[in-house]
């Protein structure tokens, strides 16, 4: 290994750490904003924006109880797995003008898989806690996971396919390709419609990924007393909270990369360093707007669905929308 490659290696490690820390911070920060906005929508003052940080630190000092029926290493391992897999996704995401740390040809697929991991970890943790509420919650989480995965996968693959048709030979499942070739630019009017449908699909999948109302059935407070998380406390709970916060960033960024990868600097005819800064800022603005609609607004304006309703909403309604999107895309390409 040459000196420069060692240097790059070290740089990557540092970058990894930086992104992990930043991701967590941005996630918690947005969570605070989310809670504040939701409160304002509900005519309340709401918690201070730093509240999620406080909650996190609070949870860290709390006692970490492992219930008697649980298998300790699985019970404790689940939250770590959830967090690690979510943070890993961050390494594959480009943030506005900052390219992804690890770019690979198949990273979009990898992300889809990694997105399922926290849910799986949650299910495992829930099952392993040995409480019947948690078991029912875990079953629901599983059902929900299977339901929303289909529309999610449809969206991702259709977009990749369309991109591939437009630019054969491009590394299509690499997010870099998406961010350099916005989907809106390569399709005709019908494809445009298809892309809107796909965007809609992704937006609706997001609340389930983040298990917020109306798709928080697995954790339903009023039915299952916290569902899968019912036995978790202290540090483990904190890790799950973190996971959720980071996942929020991930989902927001994913939407941006797939659908709104535009930068603002060309518009302002900036270049060089100022452009870079502007783009980063613009990215955050986009992130907040996207998350407002994907998370805050949806969760405030809807009631929780029952698991069968949620499941059929995804498996039937949303998948059909995704497939119609596919159809539009295909027709658009053929004509």
């Amino acid at each position: 290994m040459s000196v420069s490659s060692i240097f790059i290696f070290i740089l990557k490690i540092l970058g990894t750490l930086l992104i992990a820390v930043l991701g967590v911070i941005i996630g918690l920060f947005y969570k605070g904003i989310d809670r504040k906005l939701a409160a304002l929508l509900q005519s309340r003052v709401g918690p201070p924006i730093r509240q999620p940080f406080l909650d996190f630190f609070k949870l860290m000092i709390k006692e970490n109880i492992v219930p008697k029926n649980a298998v300790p290493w699985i019970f404790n391992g689940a939250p770590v797995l959830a967090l690690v897999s979510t943070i890993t996704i961050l390494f594959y995401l480009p943030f506005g003008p900052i390219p992804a740390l690890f770019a690979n040809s198949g990273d979009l697929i990898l992300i889809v898989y990694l997105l399922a991991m926290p849910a799986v970890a949650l299910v495992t943790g829930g099952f392993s806690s040995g409480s019947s509420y948690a078991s029912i919650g875990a079953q629901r989480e599983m059902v929900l996971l299977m339901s929303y995965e289909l529309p999610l996968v449809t969206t991702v693959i259709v977009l990749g396919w369309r991109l591939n048709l437009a630019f054969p030979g491009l590394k299509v499942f690499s997010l870099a390709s998406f961010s350099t070739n916005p989907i809106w630019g390569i399709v005709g009017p019908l494809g445009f419609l298809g892309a809107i449908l796909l965007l809609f699909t992704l937006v609706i999948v997001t609340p389930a990924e983040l298990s917020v109302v109306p798709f928080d059935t697995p954790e339903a407070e009023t039915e299952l007393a916290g569902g899968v998380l019912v036995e978790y406390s202290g540090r483990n709970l904190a890790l799950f909270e973190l996971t959720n916060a980071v996942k929020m960033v991930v989902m927001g960024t994913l939407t941006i990369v797939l659908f709104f990868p535009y930068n603002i600097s060309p518009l302002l005819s900036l270049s060089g360093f100022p452009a870079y800064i502007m783009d980063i800022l613009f990215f955050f603005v986009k992130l907040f707007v996207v998350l407002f609609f994907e998370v805050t607004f949806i969760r405030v304006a809807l009631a929780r669905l029952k698991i069968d309703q949620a499941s059929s909403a995804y498996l039937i309604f949303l998948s059909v929308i995704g497939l119609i999107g596919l159809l539009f895309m295909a027709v658009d390409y053929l004509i």
Partner: protein
Amino acid sequence: MKLDNYFDRSLWVFHLNTGSCNGCDIEIVALLTPRYDVERFGIKLVGTPRHADVLLVTGPVNRKMLPRLKLIYEQTPDPKAVIVVGACGTSGGVFYDSYNVVGPVDKHIPVDVYVPGCPVRPEAIINGVLQAWLKLERLRGSGADIEKKIAEVNA
């Protein structure tokens, strides 16, 4: 592990009814609603004692709920605080002479703050939280109080 400043600012609350008339319970729910909105203090109502930092206990403790009260106290991870809301939890209130009431709450679990009232006004509960903050700050400030508390209990 340390009982630090973050604890006060993110109190998650589990509400336990041990046989109350619902008056206080309603006021606890009212606390969350826009007029009072305790979420601004980071207070959040949670569905399981495992997530809780504070137990809000209402009701005079009847026989059937007693084991549950103790169990829930045990299930709540440390550090934790107990706030008793309402006259009946504080002293038995109007239910003082029932054979089925084994309260008040402090006969069975250690209580940190009492909020008398029947029912308590939501603001009085906020005042109770304030008292709890003060107590926690004092506890952090000097270890002596804890020694005293132990001596009290042992006596």
